[in-house]
């Protein structure tokens, strides 16, 4: 029993890296996603942005991660820490997916909503802020929650370049104890626990953004 608890604590140390990667990546992904969506909506750099998104979606994340971590020193002359390389690559990758989610979100708003706002002489800024965005947020929430869950699981790739996340701490432990069963079960428990937490928070936000509560 004490061995189990010490295993859980040891693997649990990885949760800080995992969460850093999740929140860091998500912040970059959302920020870039919003920026790209605004630019594209206003007709700027559509071709260029679409190519970037296509490339980011069109190659394995593990390739992007090793590319950024291992080739940044030789190409850009900067040595990135493991965590920053992770945040950058996970951020760029989720940017590709998030901007597609946002695009679909805008398309989900009927043209009539924009026209109704115009008809009522609501200025553009307020139309976006109070009429369009709240509806977009509500429509994309399920897809965004999916994206957060995917991203959480993908952060486990950081172990391939030596990041001490949950995955890596469990592997370390397994190597020490010559047994994979217990450490991997514990790591799985951590990931699944986090997924359940995200699902729970997601449902709460979804409930709060429902227009009609029955």
């Amino acid at each position, binding site marked *: 029993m004490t061995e189990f608890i010490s295993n859980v604590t040891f693997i649990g140390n990885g949760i800080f890296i995992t969460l850093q990667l999740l929140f860091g990546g998500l912040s970059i992904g959302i920020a870039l996603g919003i920026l790209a969506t605004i630019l594209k909506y206003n007709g700027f750099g559509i071709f260029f942005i679409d190519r970037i998104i296509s490339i980011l979606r069109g190659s394995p994340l593990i390739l992007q991660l090793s590319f950024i971590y291992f080739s940044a020193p030789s190409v850009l002359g900067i040595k990135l820490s493991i965590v920053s390389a992770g945040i950058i690559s996970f951020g760029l990758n989720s940017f590709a997916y998030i901007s597609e989610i946002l695009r679909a979100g805008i398309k989900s708003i*009927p043209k*009539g*909503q924009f*026209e*109704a706002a*115009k*008809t*009522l*002489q*609501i*200025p553009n800024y*307020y139309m976006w802020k*109070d*009429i369009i965005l*709240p*509806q977009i947020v*509500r429509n994309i929430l399920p897809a965004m929650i999916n994206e957060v869950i995917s991203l959480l699981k993908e952060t486990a790739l950081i172990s391939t370049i030596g990041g001490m996340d949950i995955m890596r701490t469990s592997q370390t432990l397994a190597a020490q104890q010559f047994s994979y069963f217990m450490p991997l079960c514990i790591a799985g428990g951590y990931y699944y626990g986090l997924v359940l937490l995200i699902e729970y928070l997601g449902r709460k936000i979804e409930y709060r953004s429902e*227009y*009609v509560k029955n």
Partner: protein
Amino acid sequence: MLKISNICKKYGDNLILDDISFMIDESKIVGLAGPSGGGKSTLLRCIQQLEKIDSGSITCDGQVCFMFQDFQLFPHMTVLENLLYAPKLNDQFKNHEQYAEKILKNLGIYDKSASYPAQLSGGQKQRVALARSLMIHPELLLCDEPTSGLDVATIFEVVSLLQSVRELGVTMMIASHDLDFLTKITDQIVLLRDGKILTTIETKQIENPINYLRKYY
């Protein structure tokens, strides 16, 4: 009140409105009739400037408001919020809270103030849409198919609603397939077909206007 001179509107190579001209006097209700695809909605959308016209001119003295066939209420706002949102942003409109209350009471939907659009029936949504349009004190109200999808009793209500709006001094233009409805409420009916005005009648001065208009369909 509204003067339309020689307007043309194309979508791509298709001429949708072909040299349309007419005038509307203050506080009149004018109907737009004609077969499907004749250009009724397009004409209303041009007047509201939701579409650009290719030539001609539209002059209107006063505020215009457009009522959509599918209402386009804001689904994430309650009935009252739908009414108050636009006037709240504009200093020109004063006492809008009392005004909203008055309109909602007049239209018999005051008890629905806190409901969301999804919780309303078609006729109730219609009234909210009308109330919301009135909040910006339009001088000209454009209605696209205000009776479509409503049952006979509700259409009757719409007639009396629009008549009470006329009493506020609002000029109206109503596109509709429902000739019976149009003859009940309008002073004048313009018949549009293939983007051209085929005839204009004074509703009250003609015997059996419905039969007369049917010939043009």
